[in-house]
């Protein structure tokens, strides 16, 4: 049964919350701001009482899946458990009730937090300094590309306009590079699923701006030639960008800074356990090597003894990239997480994330094709191609079968270079029992594909809705109710 929309539940005259009585003379808008600026009537919002609004959202919640409800092995998204202490920290009034333009003296706690978190993230990644202003991974990438530009501009190397991305990269990589005016060159993975020096070689010239890599890459494989790659790119005058989406595989084990990367972004909503919130808010800090520090966005946060300040005096800065200082409350959560985990805990998180992934991979590869059969890092990519040929059952059908079993599907059809891809990332927060159940369900679905493919084609049954008509939705879009 579909939940009625808030608008459909509306009844004239209902209100869901009250304001204090006005304790000053009421101003008449017509008089104060003039009839030419006044609205004829307030917007047609729904009219509901509090109990209806509360129930509405709780009923919507019942039709939604989250990490708190079950296993969520969505590859590349690192859907690890979101600790509750983070939420408590982020709701502290001293953090929530602070305005971004207060005097510096009155926001020392916030500034110290930003400074401390930046320092910790630099240590974890081996970078020199950074900014917390970017609000998501893609925002971080865009910032990173601006930093590349500013660096080449400063050096008078405006010819450097080509940016290499592997064909397995996240879509945001080429999009961010292109939006920043770079010409995107896609290079294929070699037979190992990795970037090779051979693929790189033709592009190592004075037009090269750099390369964007994820390491481990989106196939869950560590780019073993990374030092040779970074040397080659640096030798030809280019820079290296690290998409931190997969940092959860290597914390405390290997650092992008030590691999030779110049600019990196992290996704605090992935690696550092802040909640994904149905698509955000996230946080995508950008960290850089020493030579790129002068170009970081303003304001910087600096420390002099016990005093923290905003520093706007950065003549080479790329400028501001968002309104204030980023998604501050997300950063509060990330710091809380780092404090609880500590250096040993962060390393253990990566170790167990990789162990969980390899355990699943080992059990699933006899059934689903594994393109690159080597030890993986925090995730791996299976292909349902063979299944599709033999039974007609696709990666999407498997995904829908998982939904029926109370498990969130893996990422499907990404990376683009693996046909019928199922990209699985269990994360370290899942128990052996959960993994075993997932294996059983995947085996069961595999059997079902051969024995009763039709039922799987129609899956999921007994959910709030069955498969939806996305073609109809895109041909005749309705994105607003009665607009």
């Amino acid at each position, binding site marked *: 049964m579909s939940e009625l929309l*808030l608008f459909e539940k509306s009844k004239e005259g209902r209100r869901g*919350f009250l*304001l204090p009585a006005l304790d000053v003379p009421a101003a008449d*808008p017509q008089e*104060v701001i003039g009839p030419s600026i*006044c*609205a004829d009537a*307030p*917007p*047609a*919002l729904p009219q509901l009482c509090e109990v209806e609004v509360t129930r509405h*959202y709780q009923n*919507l919640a019942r039709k939604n899946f989250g990490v708190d409800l079950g296993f*969520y092995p969505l590859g590349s998204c690192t859907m*690890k458990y*979101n600790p509750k202490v983070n939420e*408590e920290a982020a709701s502290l009034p*001293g*953090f929530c*009730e602070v*305005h*971004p*333009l207060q005097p510096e*003296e009155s*926001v020392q706690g916030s500034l110290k937090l930003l400074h401390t978190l930046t320092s910790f993230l630099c240590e974890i990644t081996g970078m020199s300094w950074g900014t917390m202003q970017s*609000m998501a991974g893609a925002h971080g990438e865009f910032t990173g590309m*601006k930093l590349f530009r500013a660096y080449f501009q400063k050096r008078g190397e405006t010819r450097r306009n080509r940016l290499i991305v592997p064909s397995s990269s996240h*879509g945001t990589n080429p999009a961010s590079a*292109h*939006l920043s005016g770079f010409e995107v060159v896609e290079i294929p993975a070699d037979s190992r699923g990795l970037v090779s020096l051979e693929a790189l070689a033709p592009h190592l010239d004075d037009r090269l701006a750099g390369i964007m890599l994820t390491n481990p890459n989106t196939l869950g494989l560590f780019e073993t030639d990374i*030092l040779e790659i970074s040397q080659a790119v640096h030798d030809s005058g280019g820079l290296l960008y690290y998409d931190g989406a997969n940092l959860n595989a290597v914390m405390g*084990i*290997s*650092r992008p800074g030590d691999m030779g990367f110049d600019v990196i972004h992290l996704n605090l909503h992935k690696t550092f356990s802040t909640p994904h919130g*149905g698509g955000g*808010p996230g946080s995508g800090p950008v960290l850089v090597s020493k030579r790129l520090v002068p170009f970081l966005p303003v304001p910087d946060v600096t420390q002099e003894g016990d005093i923290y300040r905003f520093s706007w005096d950065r003549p080479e800065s790329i400028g501001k*990239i*968002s*309104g204030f*200082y980023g998604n501050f*409350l997300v950063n*509060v959560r990330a710091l809380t997480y780092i404090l*609880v985990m500590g*250096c040993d805990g962060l*390393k253990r*998180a990566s170790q167990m994330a990789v162990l969980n992934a390899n355990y699943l991979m*080992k059990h699933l590869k006899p059934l689903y094709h594994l393109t690159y059969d080597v030890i993986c890092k925090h995730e791996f990519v299976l292909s349902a191609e063979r299944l599709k040929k033999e039974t007609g059952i696709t990666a999407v059908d498997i995904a829908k079968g998982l939904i029926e079993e109370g498990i*969130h599907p893996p990422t499907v059809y990404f990376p683009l270079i693996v046909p019928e891809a199922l990209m699985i990332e269990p994360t*370290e927060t899942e128990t052996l029992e959960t993994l075993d159940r997932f294996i059983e369900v995947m085996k069961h679905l595999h059997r079902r594909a051969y024995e009763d493919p039709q039922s799987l084609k129609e899956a999921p049954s007994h959910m*709030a809705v*069955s*498969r*939806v008509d996305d073609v109809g*939705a*895109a041909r005749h*879009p*309705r*994105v607003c*109710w009665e*607009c």
Partner: protein
Amino acid sequence: MNRPIPYIPHTQQDISVMLKAVGVSSVDQLFSDIPESVRLQGSLAVPQGVSEYEALKFMQGLSEMNIRCTSFLGCGIYDHIIPSAVKQVLSTPAFLTSYTPYQPEISQGLLQGIFEFQTMICRLTGMQVSNASLYDGHTAAAEAAAIALQAKRKAGTILVSAGVHPFTRKVLETHYRGSGIKIETVELHQGRTRLEDVKDLLSSDAAALIVQTPNILGVLEDLDGFAEAVHEKKALFIVSSNPMTLGVCRNQASWGADIAIGDTQCFGLPQSFGGPTVGYIAAVEKLLRKMPGRIAGETKDAQGRRAFVLTLQAREQHIKRERATSNICSNQALAAFGTASYLALAGPEGLREAGVQCMSKAHYLYEKLGEIPGLHPVVEAPFFHEFAFYLASPEKAKEYLDRMYRRGIFAGVHLGEMDSRFDGIVVSAVTEKRTREEMDRYAECTREVLA
């Protein structure tokens, strides 16, 4: 033996079982593909882990280093009343711990919620289409400009009123620096953007004009005739508005805007040192397929029941890659739920009442301050809940604000610190949360400080 960590469930026995299944002898062996040369020697110089209680205590300590005063700060972030029911929605696990609703069958809650948010934004702004949110109102301006540049391919200039928030203008500059796109400023006259100046600057190269109302001085712009002038050059008219004004003031559609942008922090979201907030963007129907970010659409399931789904995904980066015109992926979905639930609780009358209260209180304080020598209104023009006054110099402005702070009042923002064209100008905001007593005290302290 390892210190137990509440978020890592592996027992020693689990680890042995799993290693055996994988066929390796140690956890380290799982990392044997990482060349020795890029392995971290020793451990990270991050403190040893602590209990959750200790971490929380540390965070509490940090939070208490922040000082809260009676606040009249605005300029994009406001201290409004937040209903308890909104906080409850924001902490609902099924929303908080989910991700982008790629799988509609188990994401109907989020998808319907986003669809409702989109509808509310359309109703507020009068536009026909909206998306699931953007990072904030400032980056929304850069995304709106991108739509305009896409709609008018060969154009290369974005006109921006000097009344647009200085940080929005800075974000626009960063976004388009080095791209060949020019950002040109329309100066204010008497605190307002003048149509004749806009007409002077509009050339055939203009892709869009961006205006903010109320503008950074708090002044409500009169935008009659703007849309016609902009459309004559085949450019788009982009209007940014604090949506709290829209229960009382004319919305973007009524001014003929093609794209409406802004930030909904004022609806249900704490100030949070500036974030997270929610950037909104809405547009006329014909721009739908040029919108950035996620969009929820209504459709039907296999049984013909109403269902919601992420739609028009072919616009997006994960499909279009380098041909995409925006790289937006994550947005501010959960915070948008805060806004939607606020608006559902407030309803049209609640929104209007909040607006009238803000306006009444701001005008009350303005009158009070008007009696004080040494404070000069910047302009005599209609305002909503923010107004600007001028002190003799930037130094005087800073000194005034500092002395007010010593008396427990955040009296306003010195705009000169964000943009030197506004040196010596202080902007104060008054929300429904401020009381007469607080405002009387504000006036009294101001009198003392300026005496």
